[in-house]
């Protein structure tokens, strides 16, 4: 006698097909954003006084007029804004980011050389801050109103207020200068040969302070987010229902409160990746780590605008990729966006 007027949605396409479709859709969505950033970077370069050739010649200390004209021809710098723009876009399309003055090399290759170090730092810092943030924020939410919650909440506020580079310097003063436990900077010990395993440990030892600093500056965000999300979910009907159904407290906390509360945290990882990359500029400078951030600082110091523009574009691309990966992870955690590519927004 029961009738179900509405049936379940049609069977979706197979998992792999949906995955591929989602990835393509997400990449297509990123293209206008990347194009806008490329245009923005062009105008930023146009804003600068003198062109790249002036800077380049100043950089190598040569004043040969013929050489300058040659270069201008090659980069279309002698023409009007329109044709300069066209040349710029054409170059970008073949991934030619121009010449670095400071390094007298192709910008692309300089960036590729530094990228792995930054990636290593970023990924470790994200993993560290998100996981500790989830645990601490979750604890604060479970003990809300108590002294632990007050402590964690206040700690988050204080941590949020401290400049990352200062935190790094405090770390150096304490752990490198006073206690001499950790190296003061750099990515590895110079002129040392520890063998393959030793080198990895050496790099890890050098990364402890910078990664911790970077993670600490973003820890507060995840702590507060997780705490808020847990409290939100705790007030939801399904948690009340789970308690009424007599589920063990462990299941209620982990499966019914914790898991749904992870969703905003995952979203935030994507949103924050740009900020984190920005934050690594100062941290890499403080700890003399040869990454993308320190490279940006060098580019600014040497007025190497081609290089700076290249880093801006590369950084944006990196953020876009991180966001796509995060969206895919989100799809795994939340079935409501898994269904069709079109609903995800």
């Amino acid at each position: 006698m029961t009738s179900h007027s509405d049936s379940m949605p049609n069977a979706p396409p197979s998992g792999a097909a949906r995955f591929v479709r989602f990835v393509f859709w997400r990449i297509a969505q990123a293209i206008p954003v990347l194009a806008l950033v490329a245009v923005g970077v062009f105008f930023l370069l146009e804003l600068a006084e003198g062109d790249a050739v002036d800077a380049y010649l100043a950089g190598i200390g040569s004043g040969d007029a013929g050489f300058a004209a040659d270069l201008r021809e090659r980069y279309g710098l002698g023409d009007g804004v329109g044709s300069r723009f066209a040349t710029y876009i054409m170059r970008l399309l073949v991934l030619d980011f121009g010449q670095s003055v400071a390094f007298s090399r192709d910008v692309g290759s300089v960036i590729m050389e530094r990228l792995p170090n930054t990636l290593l730092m970023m990924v470790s810092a994200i993993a560290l801050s998100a996981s500790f943030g989830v645990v601490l924020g979750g604890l604060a939410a479970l003990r809300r109103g108590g002294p632990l919650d007050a402590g964690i909440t206040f700690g988050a506020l204080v941590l949020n207020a401290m400049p990352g580079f200062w935190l790094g310097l405090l770390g150096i003063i304490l752990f490198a200068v006073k206690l001499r436990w950790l190296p003061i900077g750099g990515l590895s010990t110079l002129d040392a040969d520890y063998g393959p395993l030793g080198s990895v440990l050496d790099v890890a030892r050098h990364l402890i302070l910078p990664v911790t600093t970077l993670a600490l500056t973003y820890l507060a965000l995840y702590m507060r987010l997780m705490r808020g999300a847990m409290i939100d979910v705790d007030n939801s009907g399904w948690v009340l229902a789970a308690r009424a159904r007599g589920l063990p407290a462990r299941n209620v906390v982990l499966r019914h409160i914790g898991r749904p509360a992870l969703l905003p945290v995952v979203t935030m990882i994507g949103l924050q990746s740009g900020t984190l990359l920005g934050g690594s500029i100062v941290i890499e400078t403080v700890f003399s780590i040869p990454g993308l951030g320190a490279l940006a600082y060098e580019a600014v110091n040497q007025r190497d605008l081609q290089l700076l523009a290249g880093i801006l574009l590369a950084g944006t691309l990196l953020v876009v990729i991180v966001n796509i990966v995060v969206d895919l992870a989100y799809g795994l955690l939340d079935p409501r966006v898994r269904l069709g590519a079109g609903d995800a927004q």
Partner: protein
Amino acid sequence: MSKPVLQLDDLMVRFPGSPPAVDGLSLGLAPGEVLSLVGESGSGKSTTLHAIAGLLPRDAVATGDLRLDGRPGNLLATNADRRGIAGREIGMIFQNPGASLNPVLTIGSQLDEIVTAHRELRRDAARAVTEELIDAVGLPRMGPQAKDWARAFPHQLSGGQKQRIAIAAALVGNPRILLADEPTTALDATVQAQILDLILQLVDERGIAVMFVTHDLGVAAAVGDRMIVLKDGRLVEEGAARTLVRNPGAEYTRELVSASLPFTRDFSVVRKRDGVSVGAGALKLSNVHRRFAARGGGRVQALGGVTLTLSPGEIVGLIGESGSGKTTLGRIAVGLERADSGSLTLDGRAFQPAAERSLVQMVFQDPLACFNPRQSIARALTHPLRCLRGMGGKSAKQQISALMEGVGLDPRLGKRMPHQLSGGQLQRAAIARALAAQPHFLVCDEAVASLDVSIRAQVLDLLEDLRKRQGLGLLFISHDLGVVQQIADRTIVMRNGIEVESGPTASILSAPREAYTQQLLASVPSGLHPWRESRAGSVLA
């Protein structure tokens, strides 16, 4: 009465900073009986269930004596041992079936979890029990409508299907007691009927005692063996359910009974109205179509060619379940939505409601949402006076006072902000605002659905009075047959964007021609007969 399976004495529940939510309530629940708890909002009925289930928020203080048959100790004591109670002794189902399931886990995984928690089973063995349960609540794995329910996520199910799953979840641990907290309130009438059938069938089979909380007297009296009427946290009256409805003892019960009409189930008795002149100047919507962009692409039909005539001084009821298109039709009539095709005429001439705002006005469902939270009531009332009638200054002020008095509101309330008024007061103010434009027609979109029954009766009286005094034509949109029975001269039944049937309210309700209307009528619980009896006698069963 045989030895009660649950005995509650002198329950007091307090939330910080407010008067007691439950104040000295005592009740007993016999094995296998269905006890209805009925009351308006704030009567403490849900709080009582939460106190019994141990689900009160941390800042609530509950005292009293709660004992389960065969278990030692008072469960309300501060250090009471509640192990093995939730799910095994007491199962519970909730009002909003969507919210009671975790959105990120499959139905099967959630049920498996409960099965492993209550029965000594490994995870893989649990699935078999889960499948059995899903089948038992009327979601078959085999047959024409079979699905792999266990692998579905909650958002892929309808409200009724989710409530079935929630019932399955409550029954996993074979509880002796089922607490049902308004389990059908959020559902459409026909779905509500199915869920009531299911609950009664399951508890009967398993000999479970039920505490059924509802604000709907009809439902309470139909499903309950006994009934308790609550008001402001206190017990008003207790007795055999149908007897209590036929012969209410307490004054409050009597009021409640007279305010909740549908239980009479005598649909031929439509109130006689005097002095209603159905004259010229009718508003007519002809062959109206409307489609909306659907989520995930494509278009969904909201209206598939509906025609409706509304004369001054006439009240037309528009009945339908969710998705029937009744609200869209109302919004088109006031010009908040446009029709894709079809025509609107007024007194025979083409009519654009958006261009002539003052002629058709609207009263919304949620009175709090339809006032700007940052503007006082009087300010909200000035808008139509100024914009549509060009009034200002002193004359507007006088007019506001007159309007508020006209709907039975103290004009001094005009200074208040919306959140400082009660729901009933706000809905009166909303009616006053609609009347300020001096409309010929008023569209009431579920205008009494969010009000308690006693307030609901007053607002309906007010609307009836306005029609008589001012000759207003009312389009009364509702999902509630009882309300339409009480107020409408004519009734139109809608489903999936088209009219099912229409005619004088009395004949629609007493002699429906269409199967859907019959089904709809059979879904409304009569408080005078036990639910299953009336279902058995209904046309469809």
